[in-house]
C-alpha cells in the first residue's frame, strides 16, 4: 500500500474530528471581547425621568451587575422575578439598561413586576449597547471595584448560574482591595 493513497483518508479523519467537535459548539454564540477590560461606562437618559441622565460612574468602587433588558424580550420577563430576588434577598446592586424600548412600557413593567434596579439607563438607539458589545437580551455583566468587566452571562439569570458562578465570583471580588 503506497502511503500517498492514504492522504485522502487521513484528511477526512481530521475533518470528521473537526465536525464532531463543531457539533458541541454553538455557532451563534459570539464571546465577548470585553472580559477583563475596563467597562465602557455610559451616560444615558434616566428611564424614570427622560429629562435627566444617569451614569455608570455612580457605581465606582463597587462590585455591581449591569443587566440589559427590554419589554420586547420574553426571557427578560422570565428573568425578572429572579432579579427581584437578587435585589431583595441577596442585596445585589443591579443597574438596568433598557434597550430599544418604549419608555412608558418599560416603566409600567417595573411598576407591575417590581423594580430590581438601582437606576435604569434608557438606550433607544443602541448607543451604550454597542459600546458594551451586546447583541441580544437579556445579558448581564459583572463589574469589579476597579471598573473592570469580570464576567458576562447571556440569557436569563437563574438560581443555578447564581450559585455556581456568579455568587462565588462576587464574594471573591468583594474581598479584593
Amino acid at each position, binding site marked *: 500500500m503506497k502511503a500517498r*493513497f492514504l492522504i*485522502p483518508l487521513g484528511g*477526512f479523519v481530521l475533518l470528521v474530528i473537526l*465536525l464532531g*467537535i*463543531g*457539533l458541541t459548539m454553538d*455557532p451563534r454564540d459570539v464571546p465577548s471581547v470585553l472580559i477583563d477590560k475596563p467597562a465602557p461606562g455610559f451616560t444615558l437618559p434616566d428611564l424614570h425621568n427622560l429629562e435627566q441622565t444617569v451614569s455608570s460612574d455612580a457605581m465606582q468602587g463597587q462590585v455591581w451587575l449591569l443587566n440589559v433588558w427590554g419589554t420586547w424580550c420574553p426571557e427578560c420577563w422570565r428573568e425578572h422575578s429572579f432579579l427581584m430576588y437578587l435585589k431583595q434577598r441577596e442585596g445585589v446592586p443591579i443597574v438596568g439598561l433598557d434597550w430599544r424600548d418604549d419608555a412608558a412600557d418599560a416603566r409600567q413593567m417595573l411598576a407591575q413586576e417590581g423594580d430590581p434596579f438601582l437606576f435604569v439607563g434608557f438606550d433607544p438607539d443602541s448607543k451604550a449597547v454597542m459600546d458594551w458589545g451586546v447583541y441580544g437580551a437579556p445579558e448581564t455583566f459583572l463589574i469589579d471595584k476597579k471598573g473592570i468587566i469580570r464576567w458576562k452571562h447571556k440569557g436569563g439569570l437563574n438560581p443555578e448560574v447564581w450559585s455556581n458562578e456568579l455568587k462565588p465570583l462576587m464574594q471573591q471580588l468583594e474581598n479584593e482591595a
Partner: protein
Amino acid sequence: MIPELGQFALVLALVLALVQATLPVIGAHKGIAPWIALARPVAQAQLLFVVVAYLCLTYAFLDNDFSVRYVASNSNTELPVLYQISGVWGAHEGSLLFWALTLSIWTGAVTLFSRSVPAAMLARVVGVMGMVSVGFLLFMLFTSNPFERLPNPPLDGRDLNPLLQDPGLAIHPPLLYMGYVGFSVAFAFAIAAMLGGRLDAAWARWSRPWTSIAWVFLTLGIVVGSWWAYYELGWGGWWFWDPVENASFLPWLVGTALMHSLAATEKRGAFKAWTVLLAIFAFSLSLLGTFLVRSGVLTSVHAFATDPERGVFILIFLALTVGGSLLLYSWRAAQIRSTVSFDLVSRETGLLLNNVLLVVATGAVLLGTLYPLITETLNLGKISVGPPYFNAVFVPLMIPLVLAMGVGAMARWKQDSAANLVRKLRTPLGIALVLGLLTPLLMPYYHLGAALTLFLGFWVTLTTLWWFHDRAGHGSLSSAIRTTPRGGWGMVTGHLGIAVFVIGAGLTSIYSSEKDVRLDPGQSYELGGHEFKFLGVVSAEGPNYSAERGTVEAYKGGDLVATLHPEKRVYRVQTMPMTEAGIDAGLFRDLFVALGEPLGQSGAWSLRLYHKPFVRWIWFGGLFMALGGLIAATDRRYFQAARRTVKAGPEAVAGAA
C-alpha cells in the same frame, strides 16, 4: 390511516434496502448468480415503496391532515395547492423523504438503462446505492419521521415558510437534490469498480453519462437558487458565499473536474486512480453539504431547523460512507498501474491542469467555509469568513482556468507541440485581445477589469468556435460541423456558457449601481441612465397575505420603458414580512426596485433602486452550461460503446486489475 400506510411503506423500503445493500454485493463477490439477479427487482421494489410513502405524505398535505406534525408545521388550509405539493420537500423531514425518493429514482434508472453493464458490476453498483439508501431511511425513521402524528391536532397548520412560497424555490430543491444524489451513481460505479478490482476505462464510460446528468441537475439547481435569491431576497445580489450556497457549489466544482477527468480516463485510460477519487469526493461533498445544512455547525441564512442529534447521525453516516470508501481506495488505488503515457504538451496535461485548478478552488472554498469552525475548535477566537475572502481567493484561481480552457480543448491527445498550439491559437488570441480592449469603450466608462472580463469572454468564445476550424483541418468547415459528435457539441455549448457567465458576472459587479433614496409620490431619481419615478403605494390582498404595492415608472431618454411594482407582503399565518422586488428584466440590463419603509405622512417612502447591467448573463451562462452537459450525456457513443461491450464480453474490457 394514510400516514401510517406511508410509514409502513418506508419501513418496507428500509427492509428492501437492507437486502439490496447486502445480497447482490455478496453474490457478486462469491459468484452466486441468483443473489446477483436480486439487484434489479429489489431496487425497483424499493423505489415502488418509497414512491408510495412519498405519495402518502403528499396526500396528507392535500388533505390538510394536521394530525401529522410535519403537515401541521408546514401547511395551512389557505396555502395554494402548488405550494401544498412543493411543501412536501419544504422542510427537514419531507426533504429527507425527497432525498430518499431521488436516490431510489436514480437507482431505478440505473437498473433500467444500464442493461449493457455486466450483471456482477450492476449488482455491486445497486448494492452500494442500497447502502446509501439504508443510511438515509434509517436517518428518517429514527430522527426525522415525516409521518409522526400529533396527539392534539391543531385546527389549522402553521403555514409553509413564506420564503418557500415562490415558484423558483418550489423547483430549486428538487433540482439540487437530483444533482447531489445523482453523484451517488458515479460514486457507486467507482466503488463497484474498486470492489470488483476492475478500475479501467469501462467504468468511466458507464458512469460518464450519469455524471453529466447529475451535474446538469446540480447546475440548474444552483442557477435557479441564485436567480431566486436575486429577485426574492431583495438584496440585488446573486451569490453570497453563504455556507449553504457553498455546500452546493463544492460538489459542483468537483463534479466539473470529474466530468473532465472521466473524459481522459475513458478516452485514454489515464488518471484512473485520480478519477475514482474525484467520484468519491463529489458524492462526499454532497453528503458534507447535507451535514452542514442540517446539523447547525455553521450559521447560514438558509439554515434548516437544525438539531445536533441529527448532526450526530449524519456525521456517523458520513464517516462510515466516506471513510469506508477512502479506505477501499487507499487499498485499491495502490494496485492500479497506469500504462498510458503522454507528453507535457497534450490534452491530458490540459485536463490535469483543469482538475488541479478546480480542486484547488474547491479546497479554498472548503477552507473558507470551515475556517470559522477551525478557529473556534482550536480556541483561536471567533471569526467570520465572507464574500471579501472568497472573491479574493476564488477569482484569481478561475482566471487561469478560463485561459487554459481555450488551450486545452485545442490540444491533441497524447502529444502536441507548443509551436503547433501557438500557431493555432494566435488568431483567436489576437482578436480576443483587440475586442477585449475595445468593447469597454461602449460601456458608461472604461474599466480595466471590464477589459479583462471581456477579453476572457471573447477568448473562450473564439477558441471554442475555432475548435471546429481545427477539427476541419484541410477539409471543409461545414462537414466538420456536421460530423461533430454530441460530446463535442456538449463541450462547445458548455464552454460558451462559461464565456457568457464570465461576461455577466464581471460586468454586473463592475457596472452595477444602486441607491437608497427617499421619494415623495411624483418625485423621481436618476440612476444608471434611467429615471425612476415613484407614483406611490397602495394596499393589495393576496390569497394568504396582505401587501403594500408600490408603482415606479422607469424612463429612458423621456420614454417610459418599464412600470415596476415592488411589494412588501405580510403573510397572515406566520406574520412574516417579505419584500418582493419590482424587476424589469432585459438582456443588457435589469432595473430593480425594492420597497423600504413609509417615511412620514406625505406618502413618501424609502426605496432601493438598482441598475444592473448584464446580470441575466449569469443565469443564461449557467443554462448554457447545463444544456452542454445534457447534449454530452446523450451522445450516441455511450449506447454504441455499450453494445460493443456486450459483444466483446466483460473480459475484454477488464484491464489492469
